[in-house]
């Protein structure tokens, strides 16, 4: 790996100014994505700004009907939080199924979302639940946040501080993992929210996580596994690799959504 400057900050303001003053700085939270990337010399940041010491970014709290998860909260903390488990069990399940135990001990929700890996799990929960992503200077609806492959609405120097998830009436996440990496080959997050049915698909789309609106419509009419049986998912714009062709991914979307709905009802 290439060398870099390592900076440990203890407040959000320090993090913002460290990022601003670096020529090509990156934030370091759990490091589960950026460190492997740097190790393989696929990235060469000038500075790594470690957020571990920023207390205000970590923790889980209830805010009315919402669960607010701080950006540097680990997957393990989210999965094992009684608050999350009781209000949005599907979210706790999702967090508890990311990577492996060691990844869950280090990996953070902010890191996952900021990276917007097309096969990551958390983006599906954000989009599926209609979450709000909070940064140091504004808020995004999840629908506005994920902008494509590894792309988000974040601007240079902007830092995710927390994600607020409205508790749904019911929700369920079904993942069909890539056999090798165990990222989602196809993941389907289905939720019945106060604003309607939402179906978010990760792992499949060439532009990352997306909402399956045709299925949302069908499920709005009839929230049952069979309601989507006749929907043929097009393989266009879906990923294709050695583990799954776009046709197979299209097929799996139908199966995973059906099973997620079954998990809801």
């Amino acid at each position, binding site marked *: *790996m290439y060398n870099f400057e390592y900076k440990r900050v203890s407040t959000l303001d320090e993090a913002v100014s460290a990022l601003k003053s670096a020529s090509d700085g990156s934030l370091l939270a759990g490091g589960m994505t950026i460190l492997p990337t740097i190790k393989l010399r696929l990235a060469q940041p000038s500075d790594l700004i470690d957020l571990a010491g920023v207390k205000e970014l970590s923790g889980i709290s209830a805010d009315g009907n919402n669960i607010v998860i701080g950006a540097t909260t680990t997957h393990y903390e989210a999965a094992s939080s009684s608050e999350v488990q009781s209000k949005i069990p599907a979210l706790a399940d999702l967090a508890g199924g990311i990577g492996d135990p060691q990844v869950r001990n280090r990996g953070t929700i902010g890191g996952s979302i900021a990276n917007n890996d097309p096969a990551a799990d958390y983006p599906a929960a954000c989009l599926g639940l209609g979450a709000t992503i909070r940064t140091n200077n504004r808020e995004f609806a999840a629908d506005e946040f994920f902008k494509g492959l590894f792309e988000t609405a974040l601007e240079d120097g902007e830092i995710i501080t927390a994600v607020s998830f409205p508790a749904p009436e019911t929700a369920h996440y079904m993942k069909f993992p890539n*056999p*090798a*990496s165990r990222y989602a080959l196809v993941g389907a997050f289905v939720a019945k929210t106060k604003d309607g049915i939402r179906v978010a698909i990760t792992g499949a789309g060439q532009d990352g996580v997306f909402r399956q609106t045709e299925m949302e419509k069908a499920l709005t009419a009839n929230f049952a596994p069979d309601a989507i049986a006749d929907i043929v998912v097009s393989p266009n714009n879906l990923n294709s690799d050695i*583990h799954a062709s776009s046709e197979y991914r299209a*097929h799996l979307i139908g199966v995973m959504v059906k099973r997620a709905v079954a998990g809801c009802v």
Partner: protein
Amino acid sequence: MTETGIGAAVLRTEDRRFLTGSGKFTDDINRPGQTYAHILRSPHSHAKIRKIDTASAAAADGVVAVFTGADLEGVGGIPCGFAPDGGPMNEPPHPVIADETVRYVGDRVAVVIAETLNQARDAAELISIDYETLPCVVATADAVNATTQLHADAPRNICFEWQIGDKEATDQAFANAHHVAQLDLINSRLIPNALEPRAAIGEYDVGNDSYTLYTTSQNPHVVRLLMGAFVLSIPEHKLRIVAPDVGGGFGSKIPHYPEEAIVTWAAQKVRRPVKWTAGRSESFLSDTHGRDHVTHGELALDEDGAFLGLRVKTTANLGAYLSTFGPLIPTYLYGTLLSGQYSTPAIHCEVTAVFTNTAPVDALRGAGRPEATYLVERLVNIAAAETGIDPVELRRRNLIPSDAFPYQTPVALEYDSGNYAGLLDEGLKVADMSGIGARRIDAESRGKLFGVGYSTYIEACGLAPSNVAGVIGARAGLYEAADVRIHPTGSVTVFTGSNSHGQGHETTFAQLVSDGLGVPIENVEVVHGDTDRVPFGMGTYGSRSLAVGGSAIMKSIDKLVEKGKKIAAHTLEASADDMLFQDGVFSVAGTDKTVSIAEVALTAYVPHNYPLEQLEPGLDETTFYDPINFTFPAGCHICEVEIDAETGAVEISNYSAVDDVGRIINPMIVAGQVHGGIAHGAGQALLEGCVYDDAGQLVSGSFMDYTMPRASNLLQFKLGSQVTLCPHNPLGAKGCGEAGTIASTAAVMNAVTDALTPLGVTHIDMPATAQNVWQAIHTAPTQQAAE
């Protein structure tokens, strides 16, 4: 049986060091003044090197030296250790560092040696190379008709064409057949992935003009012979090879690798130790790969289902260059195994071995024998389905009867012992076949497709004797050496040429000594893996360590007891002919006169009262044991799978294995070997697959894309055992390291196809990943009819 002797499940003596983090693997070693090597590898599968400029790299921070192929004047190429039948074989040069042409992604182009590994890597990025890319050939089936040719002296990319068996008799059998089952299959390419990546440290002693190489090898003496004699021209008394703790090998640590020669040669040039450790991504590119066959097979049957003949045509991919034993694997470890457990009277097999722009292919757990078993057992299942004969019944009708041993197959081997019908019966019992109907109903009630697969396999271990090995093309002997040394106070050190890399030699071999000499097991030390300490040995592979290496130890023990009797007879003033030896005590028959082996040992080393005129002092015996035949483990594995038809996901729901590995010294260790073997074969069946794209780039180049079996992919296996002794070695041992792998691939794939048969799917190639199974279901004839 004593608590620590033959047959006892003795806990392993080596475990404490591994469990406490005090094992010593090659990368754990640092030598004084050590430098670090980074090897720059070709990013192209086939290209001419027009120009290399290393000046900036050489001037970079911390860089000690940069070498390219042009610097290696006088260094020989990597030799090949096997030419089928002695040739003809096209054997192109295999340069340690590429000179003018690179032939696969990962081929070595330069080495940077620096004070730190990061400095070496940083500097390697400053080397500029002008490549002229050439067309490449990657797929095995395309090699002979490719427009590109890898080596000037290998037209149509053919390394050799080889055949075994009686073609005429086989063709005649097919002419008389009532039914012919046919199968076209691909035996997938695998990447071995021992958990410990390869590593090597070269060291040069200026004062003695001698070299030491620490390396991750299964066979240090073979490395010394090949590297010393063929590559670097270092005489053996000036070259020491040490293989310390080795973290798994599975065949991938048999070959002599270029990196070993690079660090040894470079250590002399820079006059400092040079260490190289592969990153995992580098291992994916540069370790030898395994299997990779394209095969057409046909099985001829009469109207009663008796096998009449087997006809096989295989194209085997050897990669870009010949690795140490590459040509052995698809020939004498493959074609000779095609008789399986069956009395097929006529067999003919033709193999075309080809070069492609891929990593060299060599042994991988089972090496040739899984390929043979997979083909035979799949063909038997297809024949069963086509003739309507139950697959168990069809096997039973064709098994070699237990009174037919020794049994001469039509493909060179003479099976020494076995009871195949007994194994099948026991296999069915362990698998609880009476409950299979209920398990099927249960699976189907959960919406799953259910399948059961059988594999009644044969294995041949311990390639021998050496003179036959020479006739078939081995450029080495295949004996094993053991020196058993009783020390003056009665403790024992065993020096063995078999080099453990996880198999527990330190325990199993100590059990032999404890049993044979009546010495407490804690008083026995087993030394292996250092050419300066152990006699010339051939190493650990092909499930040979106990049958060959263990037999060498037994022979030495016999010699020690014989000599001990003479010493004891002198001490006790009796005739050596009247001496008995049991549980560590020499006694005179019919008397109460005894002397312990420890006392005899002391006498041997302090020979004051000793028959010096008839007997040398000391108690130390060396044996080079050369077996008279292979050994032939066999077994019956039965696998049940459940398939989620919607996703194609396959789950093994039951797995049972009954193996005959001959005499068992430590049942705990044997079971562990079988478990690991099953997992490796099941991995090939369901998960693993090496994928190169058309340009020769390795797509499955990390664990992110190459699926390793995980705990959640597998289950607790049910094991049974049956013993028929090997009649020709002193232990009666056959071998157990590869049995699981040889059997399980076919068992799992037969179960998968059994589950899919109702949908009209008769064969799918490995790995049976969810996608591949879904694809097969999706395109099956019955499915298409329904759509």
